[in-house]
């Protein structure tokens, strides 16, 4: 976060010193894009907030925490695809899950789907890439996440 603020400020200062007009038109362009995206992002976070309230994290995590075998993978992929949890919350939770006995391959599936597959953020993605491309990217990522989980399971005991 601090890096982003510093970087943004440095860019702004450098740009402003070199060309005031260009800087202003750049800021205007960026802000226009932001405002166009704002309604979708707001409605997405409203929907997530309501869903998260109805299904608390602990309940979701308990589900794949206690199930083993293929069910564990499926639950991990399902929850990871739907949930939108920032990394700084997800990793501590995963650390806790590992301690309580969930296997690393299942954790890998959960983390990868969490980061790469976004069902709730699909409306945002669709706006940029179109329905088909967004759908294909998500399906491929889901498959990729399962492959990553399986490979980690295969390699874990060798290394």
């Amino acid at each position, binding site marked *: 976060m601090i890096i982003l603020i510093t970087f943004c400020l440095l860019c702004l200062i450098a740009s402003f010193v070199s060309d005031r007009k260009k800087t202003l038109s750049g800021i205007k362009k960026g802000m226009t894009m932001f405002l166009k995206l704002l309604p979708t992002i707001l409605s997405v*976070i409203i929907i997530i907030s309501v869903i998260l309230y109805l299904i608390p994290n602990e309940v979701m995590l308990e589900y794949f925490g206690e199930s083993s075998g293929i069910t564990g993978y499926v639950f991990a992929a399902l929850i990871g695809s739907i949930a939108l949890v920032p990394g700084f919350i997800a*990793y501590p939770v995963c650390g806790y899950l590992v301690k309580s006995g969930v296997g690393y391959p299942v954790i890998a599936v959960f983390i990868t789907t969490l980061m790469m597959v976004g069902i709730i953020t699909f409306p945002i993605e669709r706006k940029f890439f179109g329905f088909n491309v967004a759908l294909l990217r998500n399906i491929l990522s889901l498959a990729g996440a399962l492959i*990553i989980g399986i490979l*980690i399971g295969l390699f874990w005991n060798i290394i």
Partner: protein
Amino acid sequence: MKMFIKKNLFDISVITIFTIIAVISFSIDYQPVIEITKNNFADFLIEMLSFLPLLFIIIGLFDVWVPKETVAKHVGEFSGIKGSLIVIFLAMLQAGPLYGAFPVAYMLWKKGCSIKNVFIYLGAFSSLKLPMLTFEISFLGVKFSLLRTIISIPVFIVIAIIMEKYLKNKKFEINNL
């Protein structure tokens, strides 16, 4: 303005309904909605508002300063492995949720970045971000983090290649919303 409302009719209705319900709930002290607003919604809102405006300012500046030829030359159709490495490096330096990467992907594509590199960028963004890796290592250990990273790289590169193949003869474009 009229076009804007028409285009975002669903989103705007969700926001309006939520606002009305929230206002009513706060005035009659209805706990569940207050909890949703105060805990979940406020958290997400702060996360979003703290980084997206800055990101968009940088994207806007990038748009006015960096010429198309430069981007096309370094990460375009014929940039080879070097081009892919550049977008991976760019993605590693970033932070935030995936939806923050879409506008950057749009800008890269608009300036001539190849389709493959756009999707490599998205893949790297979701699995190689340095700030997240430090978190991962501290909570899940070096072995897991390294193994997951090393296995993820070929997987998202393959995904990017499939996307490129799929889109090759189609009229693909990333929309400026």
